[in-house]
């Protein structure tokens, strides 16, 4: 057994009454990549913050290559060679992408002059696929590029130990092999890597060993094969996706939840899904949207009928979020029209559109971090509803997501990722909408939590609430849908019933790429340079 590069013993961290990391023992050996998985709220990100020094441990020891670093502050640990990424990117927004890297170059393990730092940083940017945006302000980058910037910035430190916190979240399947190869190529220059990832393929392909955390403790540890087939792991983490079943659990849970959800569905007067109605609830006709010179959407025609779940699929940058923003009035149309219940709503302000019963659960959750769970929810149900009505809706959201009721006085920022997403969904439902847009609700969440969220969507839909669901995961998206659309480069490339789309050979080319086969059998790490596709 080789020397331990990172050794963590009895590590404990409490936040108020919650013990996020609880007497954890863990080691990353020299030359090893350790995968860490676990449900949201298991303490994975807290572990990264404790090791990097962003948080101080309440108990336990942290050793880097035998040297005790438990009492050292963050900058000192960075200089010793501990580099990290942040799960939610924290760029230096008003500096250029290149400048973002300079700090690590100057103050990292091997100090450099500004001139050398610039040259070397450009190399790192090329390697992480950011070379073309070196001179752009970091604040103007998209979420996925910001994730890459997190990685590039950590590499600029020349770290010995690299802590990667969910840099794969939001990538579609065809992009994963390139991320995997990048991580593998890093093994040549970084002594040890700790990878936190919800994308199981990445964990499987990159890690020598995997540790599973639950409630701040280590549940299991072993080779990827052993761990991923462990029944206990499947129960706490992988959920139904591991067994390949579709959302069977969704319909079981739906029956129970349907009763409570009726309060949330204003349109449910007749208590029956409106699915049969031919009349479209929402219709986009020839919609085009431009960001400056870039056409993000072009001639998009799409409709959602009453009570229907429509899934919108597509690669990153295909225009899914833009389509959602076009519906809820957050971007102006360059052409075409949007009708809701037959009425033209394009050109309306977002609040006017929301007033008609359209709710938008935005990508990235957008929780008010300083407000409590209950206050966040209250804000969702403002417009002209009585206090009693709001209380009813609040109760219904709490029944849908009991964990929110438990934590109702906690500020939104302290929730785990899964709870935050529940809160975002609950907040959208507080408006008692007839139609909701859910944008990437599964982003960065453990499979078992995603199951829970999709059960909730099914339950809400049972009461006649129509939905447009934007989803990265093709199988999940199609399993839920009545109909689906696939966007490609801002245009509708495929449309129809889920089964037809799933079997359409073009789907593979459009969306999944040719990655499927590669996942099982990766070429050996080449150590060369790899660009991720933009």
């Amino acid at each position, binding site marked *: 057994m080789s020397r331990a590069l990172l050794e963590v013993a009895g590590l404990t961290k409490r936040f108020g009454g919650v013990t996020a990391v609880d007497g954890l023992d863990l080691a990353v050996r020299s030359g090893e990549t350790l995968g860490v998985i676990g449900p949201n709220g298991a303490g994975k990100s807290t572990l990264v913050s404790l090791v990097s020094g962003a948080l101080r441990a309440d108990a336990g020891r942290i050793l880097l290559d035998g040297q005790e670093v438990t009492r050292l502050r963050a*900058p000192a640990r960075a200089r010793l060679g501990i580099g990290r990424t942040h799960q939610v990117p*924290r760029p230096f927004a008003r*500096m250029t992408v290149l400048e973002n890297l300079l*700090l690590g170059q*100057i103050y*990292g393990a091997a100090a450099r002059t500004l001139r050398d730092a610039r040259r070397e940083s450009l190399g790192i940017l090329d390697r992480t696929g950011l070379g073309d945006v070196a001179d752009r302000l970091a604040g103007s980058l998209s979420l996925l590029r910001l994730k890459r910037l997190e990685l590039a*910035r950590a590499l600029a430190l020349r770290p010995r130990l690299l802590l990667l916190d969910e840099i794969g979240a939001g990538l579609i399947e065809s992009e994963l092999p390139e991320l995997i190869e990048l991580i593998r190529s890093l093994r040549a220059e970084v002594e040890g890597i700790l990878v936190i990832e919800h994308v199981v393929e990445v964990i499987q392909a990159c890690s020598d060993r995997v540790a599973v955390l639950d409630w701040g403790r280590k549940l299991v540890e072993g080779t990827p094969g052993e761990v991923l087939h462990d029944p206990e792991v499947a129960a706490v983490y992988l959920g139904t996706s591991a067994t390949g079943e579709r959302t069977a659990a969704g319909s079981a849970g739906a029956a129970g939840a349907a009763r409570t959800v009726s309060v949330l569905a204003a349109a449910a007067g007749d208590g029956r899904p409106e699915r049969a109605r031919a009349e479209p609830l929402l219709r986009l006709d020839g919609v085009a949207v431009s960001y400056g010179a870039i056409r993000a959407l072009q001639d998009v025609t799409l409709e959602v009928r009453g009570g229907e779940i429509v899934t919108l699929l597509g690669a990153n940058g295909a225009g899914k979020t833009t389509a959602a923003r076009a519906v809820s009035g957050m971007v102006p149309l360059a052409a075409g029209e949007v009708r809701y219940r037959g009425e033209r709503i394009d050109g309306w302000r977002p609040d006017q559109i929301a007033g008609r019963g359209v709710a938008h659960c935005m990508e990235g959750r957008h929780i008010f971090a300083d407000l409590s769970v209950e206050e966040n929810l209250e804000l969702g149900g403002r417009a002209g509803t009585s206090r009693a009505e709001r209380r009813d809706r609040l109760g219904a959201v709490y029944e849908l997501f009991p964990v929110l009721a438990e934590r109702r006085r906690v500020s939104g920022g302290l929730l785990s990722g899964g709870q935050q997403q529940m809160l975002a969904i609950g907040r959208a439902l507080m408006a008692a909408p007839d139609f909701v847009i859910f944008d990437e609700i599964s982003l960065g969440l453990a499979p078992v939590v995603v199951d829970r969220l999709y059960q909730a969507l099914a339950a809400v839909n049972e009461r006649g609430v129509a939905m447009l669901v934007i989803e990265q995961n093709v199988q999940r998206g199609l399993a839920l849908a009545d109909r689906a659309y696939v966007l490609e480069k801002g245009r509708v490339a495929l449309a129809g019933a889920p089964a037809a789309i799933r079997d359409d050979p073009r789907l593979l080319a459009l969306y999944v790429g040719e990655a499927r086969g590669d996942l099982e059998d990766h070429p050996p790490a080449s150590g060369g340079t790899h660009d991720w596709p933009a």
Partner: protein
Amino acid sequence: MSRAEPGALITSAVPARRAARATLAGALVAAGALLALAPSFTSDYVQQVSFRVLQYAALGQAWNLLAGYGGLVSLGSAAFIGIGAYTTAELTNHGLPLIPGMLVSGVFAAGFATIVSPALFRLRGLYFTIGTLALAEALRLFMVNYNGLGGNIGIFLKSAAPTTAGLYWLALGVAAAATGLVLLVLRTRLAISLRAVRDDEDAARQMGLVSFRTKLFAFTLAAFVMGVVGGLQAGKLSQIEPYGAFGLQWTVDVVTVALIGGLGTLGGPLVGAVFTVVLAELLNAYPSLHLAITGAIVIAVVRFAPEGLWGVLARGWARLAAAGPRTQRGARRVRQ
């Protein structure tokens, strides 16, 4: 159009840029000479107004380094200016000449900044801002009530004030030095460090930056410049009293200068100082109108030109520069 032509244009652009830089350097030298010689051909009044402009330019530079680049929005400027004024007053009364007195004032102000920084840097963002404001106000109240330094009457200066021209030259020197100092800082790695701390201090710490040191450097440097300007103010007056030397008006004026001129730009404080002081002179007879108009301008600048007057001027200049070569190119084409 032949393929060689674009290449020819590019090569001709390099000497053009070099020429532009030489023109700029020449213009700076000429402006410097003009400013230095100004007292020989301007009235006392112009020199007095210029004195204020230069004072505010120096203060604006210091505050801009702190707030514009470092994100440390301080409302404690008056504390350092007051310390500088009192130090110079005491020292010159004990026989020290004005210029060494001003320098010692700067050192004292920087020393004070160092002492209070561990407490202040525990606060971030808006809390830091409120903390500095509270500190400055507390110091002013202390000076009013503490009798060791003259209490609310303050200190009378024994030595005669320099001539108007002398004060002008001193102020010119201070403003030029402050600008030069900031320029120097911006050429080092500190420029990166400060902006990183401004954008996300925690992330910067994770990159190995000891943010405390970076903030301390900016804070003490700004305090030094403010202390020197305070000393300069003492050199002009015959009496230093706490209401004026530690007055909130200083703090507010400095923020106004930097905001109107343009945060995070080197030229911003200079433009802002000229604009603010000249506006104050023009509206001298209507003090309340002056305040209202200044307030409205600050709001308009923040709303419509967040990069300030300097940003607007720079953009205009860039547009002119871009238009210049194009017309030349057009002319060349016509000649061909």
